[in-house]
Each structure stands twice: as C-alpha cells, then as structure tokens.
C-alpha cells in the first residue's frame, strides 16, 4: 500500500513549513533540527570552555568572516536540490576578484566593474547549465570544465595578488552597521542576509522553487508533469554562477584584493555546508535555513579552534569530515524511514 501519510519527496506542500497539515514531526525537518541541536551544543561548549566566547561580537564574526561562503552555499543549495553539483564556484570567485581588481586598477569606475563581474559569473553559470541540459553532459564534468576555465582565465589575467584601492570598494569594505559599542556587522553580512531571505522565499513560495524540488525528487516525473525541467535546470546553474560571483565580490570586499588563487577548495566548503545543513545530496529535500546553519557550524568550528589556540588548522578538516559522515548517515536513516 502506498503510504499516503508521508509527504512525497516531490510534493511542494511538504516544503511549506507554514501550511503543514501533519502534526507529527516531519522527517524532512530532522536533519535541520539535528544541525540546530549540534550548533547549540557546540556553542555551549565554546561558551563553557573559553572566556569571552559568549560575546555577541564573537557570534557575529562567524557571519562577518563567512558571508561570502554563505552566499555561495545558497547558490549551491539550489543546484544540489535539483540533484546536480557545481564544482566551479571557488574558481568563479577567483575569476571575479581578479577581473574586478584588474579593471579597478586600470581606472574603470566601480559602477561598471560591479555589474560586469556579476555578469561574468552569471554567464558562466548559464553556459554550464546549457551544456548540462542540451548536450546531456554530467554536471560533475561540465562544472569541472567550468572550474578549469575560470581558474585558468584568472591565472591568465594575472598570477599575482592585486590590491584593490578603489574608493567605492574601500568604502564598502569598511562599512559597518553598529548596534552597541563594539558590536557590529559588516555590509557583507547584510548582503548575505538579503540573499538568504530572497532564496528562502523563492524556494518556499514560488513556482520556480517548487520546480527545483520536483526536479530533484524525480526529473522524469517532473518532465511528464509538464514542468519546465530544462529551463529550471539551466536557471539553477545560472543562479549558482551569480551567487558565486556575488560571493567573489564580497570576498574582494573582505580581503581588498583580487587573486587567482582565492577560493581554492571553497566548493568543498560550500558542499559540506549544504550537506551539514541537511540538504539531501540526491536532491529534492532541504531548506535554505539548513544551509545557513551548515555555514554557521563550519564557522563555529573555526572559531573554537582559534579559541583553543593549541589545535592546528588541519583539525578543522578532520572535524568537518567527521560531521559530514555523521550527517550523511543521519540523512540515510531519515530517508530510509521515510520510505
């Protein structure tokens, strides 16, 4: 018998947190709740063990230092929800920062450079999406080629780190929103928050968002239902390209430089954040909120390791690996139960 009490993987109703009719805890929420619990536990451990860990600014710095990752991870969330993957995001960041820095150094106005670099990332995403859809090339391979292309272009433009001294860029980089004395967030955080908000709304309440979930659940069924599979699939890669280049802009605000080796391995961080945030890697299930929590977990690990002082940075990787394992097994258990 078909288990009608469980929401189907493709059902858009299942994603609407507000309009849920079933009152028992939705299995789809378990990974996100687990991430939230983990976050609370980690934060408590930090506050308990280290002096001044509980400062509001320490918490806000997680966002200040990871705003670019958050934006990239939001784009990655869309791609992974359709069951794809985008390996090019780190390289697109490198390309964005390099192009921006080079053009600004050549005296181009910021008002031209900013839209231009965003356009470059978007067009790259569009191209990869088109190749994936029209020529049926695996997303893994197509975005791998995109990664080589973007990183190669960045290296071709300049292999050295270029400082950015443009007035607009410096202003944006130094812009702070202060609450109390000593408690502030940077402009990057505000931009990232806006991106998250828009993405969450799009995913939860628009036709495009539902199509994304439907394709991730089962692309063939989505096609048979008459959903615009091709258009949606190309759109998510375009979106991811845009988010990656926006992340690149934020990164260039954050570091005030353009460098062809920026963002190396960032695609892994973004994928890890999305997975830890409870998005199913086969697609079809997950929330932007989960991704935000995933990025916070990564940021918190770094913060704890910094506070601990005698731990080396490679512990970050090991801890992230262990967390990845734990969450993937959890996903496995949850999806098994759902079936």
């Amino acid at each position: 018998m078909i288990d009608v009490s469980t929401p189907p993987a493709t059902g858009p109703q299942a994603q609407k947190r507000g309009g849920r009719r079933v009152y028992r805890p939705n299995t789809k929420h378990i990974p996100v709740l687990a991430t939230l619990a983990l976050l609370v536990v980690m934060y408590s451990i930090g506050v308990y063990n280290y002096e001044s860990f509980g400062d509001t600014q320490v918490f806000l710095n997680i966002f200040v230092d990871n705003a670019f990752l958050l934006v990239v991870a939001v784009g990655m969330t869309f791609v992974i929800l359709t069951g794809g993957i985008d390996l090019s995001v780190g390289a697109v960041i490198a390309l964005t920062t390099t192009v921006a820095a080079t053009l600004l150094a050549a005296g181009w106005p910021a008002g031209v450079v900013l839209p231009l670099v965003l356009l470059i990332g978007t067009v790259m995403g569009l191209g990869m999406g088109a190749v994936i859809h029209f020529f049926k090339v695996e997303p893994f391979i197509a975005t791998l080629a995109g990664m080589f292309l973007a990183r190669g272009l960045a290296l071709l433009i300049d292999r050295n780190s270029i400082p950015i001294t443009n007035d607009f860029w410096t202003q944006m980089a130094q812009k702070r929103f202060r609450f109390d004395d000593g408690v502030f967030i940077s402009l990057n955080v505000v931009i990232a928050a806006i991106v998250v908000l828009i993405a969450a709304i799009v995913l939860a309440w628009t036709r495009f968002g539902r199509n994304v979930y439907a394709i991730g659940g089962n692309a063939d069924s989505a096609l048979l239902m008459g959903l615009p599979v091709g258009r949606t699939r190309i759109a998510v890669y375009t979106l991811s390209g845009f988010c990656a280049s926006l992340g690149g802009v934020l990164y260039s605000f954050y570091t005030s430089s353009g460098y062809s080796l920026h963002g190396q391995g960032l695609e892994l961080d973004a994928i890890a954040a999305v997975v830890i945030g409870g998005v199913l890697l086969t697609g079809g299930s997950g929330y932007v909120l989960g991704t935000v929590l995933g990025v916070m977990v990564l940021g918190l690990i770094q913060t704890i390791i910094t506070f601990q002082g005698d731990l080396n940075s490679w512990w970050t990787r090991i801890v992230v690996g262990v967390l990845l394992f734990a969450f993937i097994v959890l996903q496995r258990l949850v999806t098994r139960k759902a079936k």
Partner: protein
Amino acid sequence: MTSMLRHRLFWPAAVLVVLLASNLVFSNNFFTITLQDGHLYGSLIDILRRSAPLVLVALGMTLVIATGGIDLSVGSVMAISGALACLLIGDLSNPDAVGPVLLVVGAAIALCLVFGLWNGFLVAVLGIQPIIATLILMVAGRGVAQLITDGQILNVHSAPYRVIGAGYFLAVPVSFLIAAAAVGLTVALTRRTALGLLLESVGGSPTASRLAGIRSRRITIMVYVFAAAFAGVAGLIYSSDVSSADSNAAGNLIELNAILAVVLGGTALTGGRFSIAGSVLGAVIITTLDITAVSVGVPVETTLLFKAVVVIILCLAQSATFRAKVFGRFGTKRAEVPA
C-alpha cells in the same frame, strides 16, 4: 574509415597524436631519446615517467566508475600514504636498508587498503551515494595526512625509497614499470577472468546483478579497495620522486584529473562498460598536455585554460546529443542515448 571513427578510442588517440604533433612543430628535439649513464632520457620518457601516478589513480578510478561509483578521496589517500611512508622511514635507524623500507611501503599500502575498505563500506553497506561517501575522506584525509606529518613537509634521505619514483631498472624508469605492471594486472584480472564482466554488470544494474546471483556488495567494496591501493602506490611514487611528503601538494586535484582521464578514455560516468586502455590513454594525454604546455612555451598558469578547452571539446565530441545536433539528422536527435 567510419568504423575507425566510431571506435571508442578514436577521439582520445586523435587528441594524443595532435598533441604530440604540435610538439614536433614547436620543440626541436622532443622525440629524441638518448641513453645517458644507463638511463633513457628524453621528453617521451619523461611523459611515461611523469604519467605513472596518474595512470595508477586512473586505473583504480576506472574500476570504481565501471560500477557506477566515483572516488574523490584518491588525492587524500595519496597524501596519507606518502606521509606515513616518510614518517616511518624517518624513524628507521638505517634508511638505506632495503628490508625495512619494503616493510614501510607495505605498511603505507596496508593503511590505504583500510581507507579503501572504509569507502567501500560506506557505499556498499550503508548505501551512501559514492560521490558523497568519498567526499568525507577527501575532506578529512588531508587533515589526517597533515596530522601524520604534524603539518610539516617531511624530507627523507633513503636510497631504496628513492628508487620507487626516481629510479631506473634496465634503463627504464621504475615508476613506469610499476604503472605498467598495475595495468597488466588489472587487464589480466578484468579481461581474462569473469571479474570484468561482473564489474560491468554491477555498474549496469546492481539490483539485476544481485538477482542474477552476483555478490554486488562484495564487488563494490573490492573496487574501492583497489582504487585506494593504487592511489597509495601513486602517493609513494610521488613522495619518493621528490624525497619528501607534502600533505598539501601530494595528489592535489588528482581526483579530477583521474576522472577526466577516465572520461576522456570513453568510460561513461554512469557505469557499465569501461575501457582500461582508454583510461591509460586519457592519463597519458593529460600528462602530455602538461608537458606540451611547457615545451610549447605556454605559460604554466595557462595550462588550466588549455585543459578546460580540451575537456570542453572532448566532452562535446563524446556527447552523442551534441554530435547529433551539430552534424547529424535533426529529426532523430531525441532518439540518441547520451554517451
């Protein structure tokens, strides 16, 4: 002519010929092979010697991909095996004795087998998607390698260890002989026994092969163990060649290059049919590409761009949909199955 064009190795072979031919134009003594101090020297020998690690990794990757999986952790496994070997050799009282060095090599490969088992366990027993299951070790593995070397680059001075990567036997590079032996072993195992057939059937449909009485779980675990073992040997070759263990540089991006080699060789990422000759050819193409870039005088940093262009062209050439759309009858484009 058409049957030759249709041969699965035609396109990769054509690329290799074009690459070699371009060397004929750009560098004068590319094809000269000389005998100095009982060693063969020349760019061609260099290609053979330098492609050994990639050939080994690509071999393991071919078997994994044949079962419909993928192994992202090979680079990390390379780093771990090199790190462990260098650490243990540094502790030897006499690093020039052959026996203990062999023991060390055995220990390093044994550790890699354990990692392979771990990957296989995650994929075959827990049923986690291969790309995700191996992502865990990819992220955590480099951390483990840095843990082994304590974040340092370990230098070793051991004559027998150096033979693995930089030595010559009967004027031929030892690393090439190791790779050739591995290729021979794999071909014998997969094409002279039923193993190859079983691999392809598991890749084609794990469920159907299980129903047909094939222990698909055991076969899946086996291919990951194979892949890790080959990656371990590749890691030893790499670290022996430079007489040190560098946890960051060893096997960096090699998983992508290996996947590229396999795809170039005509093995589809969806599993099923595989071509060992194709993967070896693919690995040699990628190494030749790197060496050609240097000899043609293309700046090193543009090699990536070069690679991206080749990947894009090859992927499109291999995509049956693309061929049908560009060269073929437009009416039948939907009927084609993607390569």
